[in-house]
């Protein structure tokens, strides 16, 4: 096989293999994501049930306190909504260097999706 032939083959096979392997990794991660979501969904369900159970004895809370709590809760929910859906995993430790970029990026990104949406609401 001449160098040029081999070079051409390198190009085709090489690029193909790289795509193949990365597609495969995509599949692997996607499976993980599914598992993560199911586990999280279950955990959330449990948490909600626990919250519901815990909420019942709230009947004997004085109405003033109840009002204050409701306002706080509402404010929290709004905030949580504005943070976007799905934010559940705990904030991770910050490393120097690139992690700062990731943090900055996350903050920017969230703003990016909120701002236009709010605009369209007006």
């Amino acid at each position, binding site marked *: *096989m001449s*160098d*040029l032939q*081999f*070079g*051409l*083959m*390198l*190009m085709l*096979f*090489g*690029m193909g*293999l*790289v*795509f193949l*392997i*990365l*597609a*495969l*990794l*995509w599949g*692997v*991660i*996607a499976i*993980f*994501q599914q*598992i*993560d*979501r199911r*586990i*999280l969904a279950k955990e959330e369900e449990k948490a909600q049930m626990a919250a519901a159970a815990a909420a019942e004895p709230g009947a004997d809370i004085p109405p003033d306190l109840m009002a204050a709590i409701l306002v706080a809760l509402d404010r929290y929910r709004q905030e949580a909504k504005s943070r*976007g*859906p*799905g*934010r*559940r*995993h705990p904030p*991770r430790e910050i*490393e*120097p*260097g*690139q*992690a700062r*970029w*990731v943090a*900055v*990026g*996350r903050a*920017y*990104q*969230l*703003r*990016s*999706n909120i*701002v*236009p949406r709010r605009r369209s609401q007006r």
Partner: protein
Amino acid sequence: MNLLSTLFAGLAAFTWGNALMIVVGGVLIYLAIVKEYEPVLLLPIGAGAILANLPLSPVIGEDGILSILYKAGVANELFPLLIFVGIGAMTDFGPLLERPHMLLLGAAGQFGIFGTLFLALLLGFDINEAASIGIIGAIDGPTSIYVSNLLAPHLLGPIAVVAYSYMSLVPIIQPPIMRALITKKERRIHMPYSENPVSRRTRILFPILVTIAVGLLVPMAIPLIGMLMLGNLMKESGVVQRLVGASENEIANVVTLFLGLAIGATMQAQVFLKFDTLLILILGIFAFGLDTAAGLLFAKFLRWVTRGPLNPLIGAAGISAFPMAARVVQKVAQEEDFENFLLMHAMGANTAGQIASVIAGGVVLALFAAK
């Protein structure tokens, strides 16, 4: 008098080539200090080049310190691999794990490797040299050093210098290509962002499974991907902070210094001052450009296929060059619409490019082994 002539043998042995290489070393140091282009590598490389080009320099003799460092960690590939452990320990694959389809952009961003390889062949380099030059397109220092040292060690000097110098030039090389290939309208596309939950389990399993999967398919990539993922596993495990610290700091710093000096020492006038070196300089720029173009065009194609809100600019982050490329994407996007934030998507594509670069390096070596 014989004594004097032996004494000033240094001056007598000084060549124009040496002088030129000392100037080149000085330029690298200038770029490192004044322009702050990857100073932790370019400064030692420049210093090594000067020390190696002083006439009769004992540092590159049989037992010279730069020869010792070269044998201790460059010839046997130890240093770039150790640096990979540190890189892995510093990399957060979170943004990629949230959006794994970004991996395809990482794949596309490696086209420069193969395109440049082919062009180098056409320019008359032999196949081993061509592949080594192509690997500049991995835009990843340790990978370039690792592969070129195995395939064409005589080109290690220029390739390493080109790889690290151009990496700092990413903010200059990429934007024109981005503006040329992506329309204004496309550049304005917002991408919705919602964090997907990524469990600690996934973060820990990811490096292990990537190692096993890539290792089974491309054994030649095991050292590169294995060390990268070892560092990441240690970081995500959260139980070996001492080892993570040692990898990120002690090992990374010491090895970077030694690696830079040893690579600089390969830039001896009689080896470096060739027409080939000039060609490598040009081919290197070409590799960077081709990577960027391929990433952008593939992102366009992906948008066409998925018809979803995908800003093709993020394709430029698939070349690796972490985190510069992702920042360039964000900057170019903001030029058109200040409120457009693509950074997290670009980060995903960027770490995908890093993994893809390593895999591409392994694939090239594997194809050579299978030749």
